[in-house]
């Protein structure tokens, strides 16, 4: 192994570790958790009370869709819709495991039936239609069900003439549904066109991570685009780019701050401020 190889390998390991870091490590036990960012031992209760943000370094851990909904919506107002829509396996796809099996596993792991929850609810007293993605369900990948539920949520906004909020967390399109997943990009983006034509407010909240086909469709089409602090957002993955251009990328590449610097998002919000930011924006757009 050359010195260069060693550095390359070390960097790859660091990136791989960082991919895991965004989740709270609960290997220590039920009571204690560890922040990978600052290595602090933390009481789980303290972290949870702090909206899953490290009380020491303010690193924002990834959260699931249910937690997100609880944090954003006024208590008891969220009404889940379209949960009857579930995954089919149109291509009968098998990689190292059958797609059907992966779906069963993802359902068991997350207690969700797909990678998005759609519904209506109130944010600071404003009724909105919403789609909230969950990265824990097959990397938040967008297949037919995600595309359909996001579109239905937009159509619900159209029907009721209310704003639409999308909270994204996704590795991109779901490969196991191949071309049908790609078509969900077109479907959801066409639905955004309808929101535009109806003059309805559409806000997107990009959370850790938002990539690929979701970035290249409804995620970046918000009238207002908010990135949550510590989110990484991009089209192509870091490794793919490094392999293509054969040079290493800056450490802050594809972070929320990086996107802000390049004018791709309107603002970065901490998790603590997200609800009040959304409320303010919704109030400002009230007719």
């Amino acid at each position: 192994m050359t010195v260069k190889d060693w550095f390359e390998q070390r960097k790859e390991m660091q990136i791989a570790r960082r991919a895991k870091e965004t989740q709270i490590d609960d290997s220590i036990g039920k009571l204690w958790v560890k922040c990978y960012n600052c290595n602090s031992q933390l009481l789980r209760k303290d972290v949870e009370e702090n909206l899953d943000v490290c009380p020491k370094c303010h690193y924002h851990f990834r959260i699931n869709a249910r937690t997100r909904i609880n944090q954003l919506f006024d208590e008891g107002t969220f009404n889940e819709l379209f949960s009857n829509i579930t995954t089919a396996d149109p291509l009968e796809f098998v990689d190292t495991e059958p797609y059907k099996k992966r779906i069963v596993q993802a359902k068991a792991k997350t207690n969700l039936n797909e990678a998005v929850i759609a519904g209506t609810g109130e944010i600071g007293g404003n009724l909105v239609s919403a789609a909230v993605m969950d990265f824990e369900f097959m990397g938040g990948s967008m297949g037919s069900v995600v595309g359909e539920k996001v579109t239905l949520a937009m159509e619900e906004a159209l029907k009721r003439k209310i704003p639409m909020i999308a909270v994204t967390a996704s590795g991109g399109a779901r490969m196991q549904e191949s071309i049908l997943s790609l078509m969900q990009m077109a479907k959801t983006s066409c639905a955004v066109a309808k929101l535009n034509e109806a003059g309805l407010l559409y806000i997107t909240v990009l959370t850790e991570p938002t990539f690929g086909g979701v970035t290249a469709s409804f995620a970046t089409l918000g009238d207002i685009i908010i990135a949550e602090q510590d989110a990484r957002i991009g089209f192509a993955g870091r490794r793919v780019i490094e392999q293509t251009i054969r040079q290493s990328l800056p450490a802050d590449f594809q972070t929320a701050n990086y996107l802000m610097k390049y004018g791709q998002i309107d603002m970065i919000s901490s998790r603590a401020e997200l609800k009040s930011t959304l409320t303010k924006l919704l109030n400002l757009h009230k007719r």
Partner: protein
Amino acid sequence: MTILEFEKPLYEIQEKIQELKKISESSGMDVSKQIENFEKQALEYKKEVYANLTPSQRLQIARHSDRPNFLDYVKLITTDFIELHGDREGTDDRAIIGGIAKIDNQSVVIIGTQKGKTTKENLVYNFGMPQPQGYRKALRLFYHANKFNMPIVTLIDTPGAYPGMKAEETAQGTAIAVNLREMAKLNVPIIAVITGEGCSGGALGLAVADRVYMLEHAYYTVISPEGCASILWRDASKADVAAKALKITSEDLLNLQVIDGIIKEPLGGAHCDYELAASELKKTIINSINELKEIKSDKLRDERYNKFRRMGVFCQ
């Protein structure tokens, strides 16, 4: 000319035929019967091979370095082509080329991804991988078509949108997303044809169309089989398995109701006969334009919306 692995036996037969011809010429022996026989066999063999191509063999045809590219088709199916350059924001991406031309007396805006046939050309066209600025140039030309009521024809042959640092900094994802959304709003007929590689969002960014066709040996997929193999199988060499699983051929996509039709290619692939390939393509485009021109713009847009709205398979 590049000879593909599975075509080698075919070329061996043809070499034999040439040898026979030479022998007969020098010795004066009449072997025309034998030659005729061999040629018949060669044709039969070719037909058989091309009727039973595996997805990975078709991938090789779709990526053939001699395959006609965008500018070849423009030359063969249009007249009076005038290229319109630039995104008006500082860049003229060469991976996407567009302009105005006539197809059978109808003015159209024609846009496509351009690949080179040599390394030198490919460096100019970035191997057909557009930057965000390419999609923005296409968008500007879409608006031009909309303003002057011209149908839009897009020809797509791309391994994907370019994954680069500058592409990310200038918002590759947003550029594609905006095209998807804006294509839904256009009042003019849009016809998209996947002529070679139709890879991922980079292809879709030009393909939210009223009619979507594929050339017989083109492929259209959410991710390249190589990319899929290295992610799902953690082994890029499993690309042929992934190619099969991803269902990327024109027949697969017609069955999945993602495309509206398949444009036949000459035996052996479009690179074997540019004129024949182009004439089939031209026929399909003209028929579609004539059909779509009759539809009022409101209805056209609604039907385009519904076309993509229906896509996807799930349980309810």
